[in-house]
């Protein structure tokens, strides 16, 4: 009995000992690899991250290995990671939500390797997922859209109904409503991340409903091509898409991943990296997400309005999802004087008031 109790006590003691907390340390010279699920020149998501990779490479003076078209399947990704680790790579950056599980397993199998994953869900002693509060920039884009619209109807293309997409949609609508409370935001989900032909066709469907601004939450520039053809305002995503709609572009919501990647990877190398317990997740203040330069049709007045809102968001005075916030199909989500907590952001599965469209049922 005593033995048992002491064994129990020992166990308890071991459990209560602080985890060998502290910074992660590399055991060898830094060798960095980036793994992408498609080509890096997709004109959107991957291209934005690859720009960050190039900046890191230049800043640190290191060559960075790149693997493209590694499918979001556990076995395929793991094979790529194993190969890199065998060759001595010790900083591995994944670039998609679909890598989350397999990457987490690899991180546990290789504790001496630092893992990062963009828009992933797992974190650990040697792994950190990162994403940006994109809804803050979409709120600003919504202001630009509402200022440009005469018809009182703006449109947006989205991919799948997951939290990180839904908050873009709702942020955009909230921003537009801050200018025109009665404005209608028509949203269509394409149910794919990558189908440029369909995106163009869906844009036409929205424009046929009298929308005169169209924004895309996807990587292809098809929506901007369609807008340019019809003379409607256009808002791009992920990289500056102005080339696709030089006349009618309003702005693009863009990522500057080097603002995160460069200091973070430097920290790994100099031994000061401590992965965020819940992942790294910042917004406009970090510079990771921002607006691209405005198009020719955006007035000075609008620019000032957006700059003011941006300053307020950075200062914490303005919160896109501050109460009172009502869901379109349901009651009040956030009471006056409160803001939507982060965990509710990640599981956001509703439209705010003022959105037309159907959110496909979630899983």
């Amino acid at each position, binding site marked *: 009995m005593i033995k048992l109790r002491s064994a129990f006590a020992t166990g308890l003691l071991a459990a209560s000992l602080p985890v060998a907390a502290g910074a992660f340390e590399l055991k060898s010279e830094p060798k960095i690899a980036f793994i992408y699920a*498609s*080509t890096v*020149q*997709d*004109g959107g998501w991957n291209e934005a991250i690859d720009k960050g990779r190039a900046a890191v490479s230049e800043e640190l003076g290191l060559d960075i290995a790149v693997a493209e*078209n590694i499918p979001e399947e556990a076995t395929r990704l793991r094979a790529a990671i194993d190969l890199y680790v065998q060759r001595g790579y010790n900083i591995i950056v994944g670039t998609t939500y679909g890598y989350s599980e397999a990457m987490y397993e690899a991180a546990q199998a290789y504790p001496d390797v630092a893992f990062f994953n963009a828009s992933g869900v797992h974190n650990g002693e040697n792994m950190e997922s990162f994403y940006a509060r994109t809804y803050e920039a979409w709120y600003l884009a919504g202001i630009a859209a509402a200022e440009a619209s005469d018809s009182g109807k703006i*449109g947006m293309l989205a991919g799948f109904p997951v939290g990180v997409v839904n908050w873009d949609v709702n942020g955009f609508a909230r921003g537009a409503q801050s200018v025109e409370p009665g404005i209608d935001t*028509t*949203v*269509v*989900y*394409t*149910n*794919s991340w*990558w*189908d*440029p*032909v*369909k995106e*163009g*066709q*869906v844009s*036409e*469907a*929205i424009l*046929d*409903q009298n929308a005169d601004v169209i924004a895309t939450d996807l990587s*292809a*520039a*098809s929506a901007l*091509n369609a807008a340019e053809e019809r003379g409607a305002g256009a808002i791009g995503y992920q990289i500056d898409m102005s*080339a*696709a709609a030089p006349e009618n572009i309003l702005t693009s919501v863009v990522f500057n991943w080097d603002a995160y990647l460069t200091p973070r990877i430097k920290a790994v190398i100099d031994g000061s990296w401590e992965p965020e317990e819940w992942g790294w997740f910042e917004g406009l203040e970090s510079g990771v997400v921002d607006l691209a330069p405005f198009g020719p049709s955006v007035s000075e007045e609008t620019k000032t309005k957006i700059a003011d809102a941006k300053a307020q968001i950075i200062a914490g005075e303005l919160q896109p999802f501050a109460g009172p916030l009502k869901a379109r199909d349901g009651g009040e989500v956030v009471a006056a004087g409160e803001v939507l907590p982060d965990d509710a952001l990640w599981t956001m599965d509703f439209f705010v008031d003022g959105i*037309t*469209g*159907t959110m*496909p*049922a979630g899983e």
Partner: protein
Amino acid sequence: MTDFFLAWLTVLPGYVLPLLLASLGVVLSERAGVLNLCPEGFMAVGAMTGALICLAGQGPWLGVLGGTAAGLGLSAVFGLAVVVFRVEQTLAGLATVALGLGITGVLGRSHVQKPFDGVPRLSETSWGAELPRVLGQQTLMLPLALLLLLLVAWFLTRSAAGLRLRAVGEDPGAADVAGVDVQIVQLGAVLTSGAFGGLAGAYLSVASAHVWVEGMVAGRGWVVIALVIFARWRPLRCLAAALLFGGTEALMPRLQALGVDFPVYLGAMLPYVLTLAVLALTSTRRGARSGAPAALGLSYLRQDKH
């Protein structure tokens, strides 16, 4: 309501024509007995080549022609493998798709996301400016595709060459005895299917999107394969099937934009569910003709030609 219907009708060809064109090619190839899983690859090279030619300033029609030729070129590789070297047709088809996607990834790399002037809409031509919108928004690809459809239907059912092609697909041995050169017929059918696939791909980039990006075929080639099974290898039924599949796809975003609660996942499933249903129905009726060519997928080897 009328407006909604007209707007839907206006965009319909954009959804239907690529499926129709590629499926006509698959019908020809499979009625000659060659199982053809290649359209995704044919369309990929067609889309890229068409766009590259347009970006080089050669004009959209040369782009369409070039895309067609690219599909034909890729099908020559497939034809060589399955008809001349008698490689297993499923594997060769999948390899051809991989080859097509790989080629476009490598060659098209520096040309992604560059808009160009594609095939003009009728309303943009000097004579079509006064057309109503539902016609004015179309391109000459619409009559071209319908013409090709009639041509293929006539060829298969009314011409002697079409009869020979069907004979090869049903019983290559008998056709051989009757003096038909099985390999030439199959090679011709495969090459034509490549040209149709390339044309369908060029439609996507040159007539529809006016831009090329990697992976823009986005699975349409696989839908085409299901579509041909659904249409029981008949050209005119391919039009009906393409209208059904494409029409639903065109309808979904429009209903969503109206705020109608439409089960989009069910809609996206439709082509496959219908195809499975047709497969199940035709295979349960014992002895009934399922519509599939009897020798589909079998390599033909004449006894004395070892």
